[in-house]
């Protein structure tokens, strides 16, 4: 198909789609209205399970089974990217070289790395109380480790990131989410039902199963993102075609 036919085809389809979207938008309830039936029910259900952060309650309690699927997509993508980016037969690894870094940049990285790790851990641990949770906190933890790459070089990143441990942690955390669902079954409720003691509202130990699943997801996201980025960084820094001189 030539470029002009393709563009023409797209413009026709886009016009129809735009007309449909405009019609649909005018039929929706107005922006900022006060009628949110699902939202109100979700808030009531979250508060009844003593979870202060309703978004976390929706994700890890009210639709925990959906989040299990989403978390499996995350695990599958990390696995898929790892398969696609493994060392091919006509490639070899070269040693990454040390890079010169400004002392101020090095100081910045050394100061902020532990702080960012702590913030990420805090976000995961308080997922059921304050904005944040396993997904967001996990990304913050993974970002923290990569400050070593930004503020120093690849060799330093390799030292601070235990890749073999994280590979295993990713798989165990992904599996433990599915296993945690069995608690509900064992207590005669249903798969992934929140049957653990609910604790006191607005305390670290509140919300029962939500806090545990949240922690498992935090570990999975943190290790998954580090492993994913490790594969991409390998491609950029270490892997070269066989026979090519440095």
């Amino acid at each position, binding site marked *: 198909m030539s470029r002009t036919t393709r563009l023409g085809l*797209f413009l026709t389809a886009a016009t129809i789609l735009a007309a449909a979207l405009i019609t649909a938008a005018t039929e*929706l309830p107005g922006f900022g209205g006060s009628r949110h039936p699902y939202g109100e029910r979700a*808030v009531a259900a*979250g508060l009844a399970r003593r979870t202060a952060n309703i978004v976390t309650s929706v*994700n890890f309690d009210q639709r925990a089974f959906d989040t299990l699927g989403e978390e499996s997509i995350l695990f599958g993508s990390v696995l898929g990217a790892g398969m696609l980016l493994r060392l091919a037969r006509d490639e070899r690894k070269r040693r990454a070289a040390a890079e010169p870094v400004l002392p101020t940049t090095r100081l910045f990285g050394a100061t902020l790395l532990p702080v960012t790790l702590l913030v990420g851990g805090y976000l995961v641990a308080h997922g059921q109380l304050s904005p944040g949770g396993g*997904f967001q906190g996990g990304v913050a933890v993974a970002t923290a480790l990569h400050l070593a790459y930004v503020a120093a070089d690849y060799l330093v990143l390799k030292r601070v990131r235990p890749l073999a441990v994280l590979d295993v942690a990713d798989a165990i955390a992904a599996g433990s989410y599915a296993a945690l669902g069995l608690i509900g079954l064992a207590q005669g409720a249903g798969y992934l039902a929140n049957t653990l003691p609910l604790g006191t509202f607005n305390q670290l130990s509140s919300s029962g199963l939500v806090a545990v699943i949240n922690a498992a997801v935090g570990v999975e996201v943190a290790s998954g993102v580090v492993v994913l980025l490790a594969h991409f960084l390998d491609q950029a820094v270490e892997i070269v075609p066989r026979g090519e001189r440095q």
Partner: protein
Amino acid sequence: MSYFPYLAAGWILLAGLYGLVTSRNLVQAVGCLAVAQSSTYVLLLAIGYRGNGATAPVFSDLPTDAPVVDPVVQALVLTDIVVGATVTALLLSLVIQLRKRHGTVDPEDLTGLRG
């Protein structure tokens, strides 16, 4: 216009699709897919928005009867972001392999199958 934010989401979707159709570079095409997908964030957040001083659905420092925005759509956006980011990573690793095996990232030059 009370439905203007919904139309903005539709516009972002069409802009992303236009980029996907016309792109001559697969890395750019993956970026355009991310743009098209981000329209769903705008749409969902626009649907969940609530006027009259409603705030984030987190009750750690709010009275339990305070008006809050819709937490269901926010949870959906969170799902969307996670899935979007990982699928983008998977697509980008496919592009890296294409570049290695075929020496190009222009979809027009990819004509034959190769093992």
